């Protein structure tokens, strides 16, 4: 739900601002104004139907009561109290906080990995590949994994990482290790690996897009000013690629925070995540509880995005 919001919000912000002086409006400006609203209407409708309404319903349901077999439309805050049950107890960390910390850990690790890989790949394609055709070809290459489904891409790691998988077999065959490495699969490592595999492209594309817009003469100007390669990278390329880094980071953070499939499959159903909690509650038909959890998650993700956009004024940079 959160990423629907992200893709819809910039479009809504683009509605042209009409002049405020309503008294002196001529017929012509009024017509133009109406036209502007009309042009914004389709996107606004999509936004309304696919974002505002479901979100409103989720918030409403999160305040409803439920028992084993039905949902009762009566106002209650019990769902929220359940979410934070035991969290005021300072001696022990409550389940919710622990789950969030676990998810946050995956989020940070994945963010760091995808950022490093994404930046490097984008930099290579944008600055070291001269021909447009090769650039496009490499770019398409990056998207090839997306020709299959998420789940298949994840499952394909299993024969590789398993106890008797390709990696362990090869290492043992080469005599580098004697007993198979445990924890390649169904561990934090495999979860992060899958996240990075699935999400790096969301980092590459926006960063590449930002870098492609950097005027090449700026790199020359930096060279002319005596900057070394690293100095140019840090003082010119990184600041100018910031909008792409921010957009890519928002993609990755929202995807990882809301995920339950990857953590489930790659964690061997043993690792908790916020998305997983919601999914379990939904399959138990505890919809109000799931809704309350979803609202809390939404709030958490929004806070993270606000923090990120604080660092970079996206609207200014775009």
């Amino acid at each position, binding site marked *: 739900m959160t990423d629907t919001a992200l893709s819809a919000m910039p479009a809504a912000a683009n509605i042209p601002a009409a002049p405020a002086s309503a008294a002196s409006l001529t017929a012509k400006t009024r017509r133009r104004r109406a036209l502007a609203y009309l042009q914004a209407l389709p996107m606004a409708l999509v936004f309304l139907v696919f974002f505002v309404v479901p979100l409103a319903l989720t918030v409403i349901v999160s305040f409803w009561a439920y028992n084993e077999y039905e949902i009762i439309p009566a106002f209650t805050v019990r769902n929220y109290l359940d979410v934070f049950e035991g969290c005021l107890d300072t001696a022990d960390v409550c389940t919710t906080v622990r789950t969030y910390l676990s998810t946050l850990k995956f989020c940070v690790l994945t963010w760091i990995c995808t950022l490093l890989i994404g930046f490097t790949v984008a930099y290579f394609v944008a600055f070291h590949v001269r021909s447009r055709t090769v650039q496009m070809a490499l770019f398409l290459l990056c998207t090839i994994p997306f020709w299959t489904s998420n789940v298949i891409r994840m499952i394909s790691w299993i024969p590789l990482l398993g106890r008797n998988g390709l990696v362990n077999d090869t290492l043992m065959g080469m005599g580098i290790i004697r007993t198979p490495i445990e924890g390649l699969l169904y561990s934090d490592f495999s979860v992060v690996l899958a996240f990075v595999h699935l999400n790096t492209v969301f980092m590459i594309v926006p960063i590449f897009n930002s870098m492609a817009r950097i005027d090449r*003469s700026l790199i*020359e100007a*930096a060279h002319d000013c005596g900057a070394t390669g690293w100095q140019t990278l840090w003082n010119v390329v990184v600041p100018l690629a910031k909008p792409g880094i921010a957009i890519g980071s928002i993609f990755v953070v929202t995807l990882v925070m809301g995920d339950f499939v990857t953590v489930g499959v790659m964690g061997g159903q043993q690792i908790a995540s916020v998305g997983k909690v919601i999914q379990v509650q939904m399959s138990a038909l505890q919809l109000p509880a799931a809704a309350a959890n979803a609202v809390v998650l939404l709030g958490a993700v929004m806070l993270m995005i606000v923090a990120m956009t604080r660092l970079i004024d996206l609207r200014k940079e775009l």
Partner: protein
Amino acid sequence: MDVELIRLTKRYGHTTAVDGIDLKVRSGAYCCLLGPSGCGKTTTLRMIGGHETVSSGDVVIGPRAVGDATPAERGTAMMFQSYALFPHLDCRDNVAFSLKMRGLPKAERRAKALAMLDLVQMRHLAERLPAQLSGGQQQRVALARALVTGPKVLLLDEPLSALDPFLRVRMRTELKRLQAELGLTFIHVTHSQEEAMALSDLVVVMNGGRIEQAADPRTVFERPATAFVARFIGGHNVIRLPDATEVAVRADRMRVGLEAGPEAVPARVVSVEYQGASVHVGFEAEGLGEAATALTAVIDDRAYAGHPLALGQTVPLGWDADAAHRLSA
């Protein structure tokens, strides 16, 4: 510092952009590389500045050949055509950029940057971002950035071409003033002969990767070396004489009608352009070579008013014998 190019060559695959040129620019000179697009003038400039590798030959700046030295090691600074100001830095930090790269402390580099902005009268806008400046202001900032490290040679790549005509003339004057004040060697690439004439001590006319003529502006205008130079700098008629030699005659030295002289040829008036102080008359003359030759005469407005010409009219057209300058083939 003196700048000398020795058999300087740049090849891209099979095409030769700069074809073994030799040039000596003495210290403190204002040199303009002039030519049409694709003549190799920008490539030459970029090789001097260390932004382009040299295929063969040498660039000598001051006492030594610079080889693969970086721009900072060469003591050159470049002003780019689009100014190439860093869009994320304000004017002061743009100017201070190269000082930052050299590791100067913040306070010191900012003070130096402000002093430089003073020199180009931009101190009051020091905290603006490049996007908030006009073209002329951006150019001043770019100039300050190029000058802040105290280069010995300033390279300018079509610095005035992005400005409107009025501003272009003003900035031209200012460039000349700065150059005189600082006593630096300026090498300025342009495709405008007017700019080259107005600014330079040394005009280098280039064509097809070679130097057609390198001389002071007056020599280039009075005695163009080749037909290309005569045509490119304008104001000349290139005429092929019956003995197959070519001469250049300045358009304002053409003689029309009664004063045309004994060697006059009949010419038909094809265009008349009033220019204020003078009138530009276009002719088509038969009898000079095989085809009809297009010639221009610049006639003083008072003289023209005495003997106006009508389109299609055929009149004798000639020139002073001593105004004809023989061109080398």
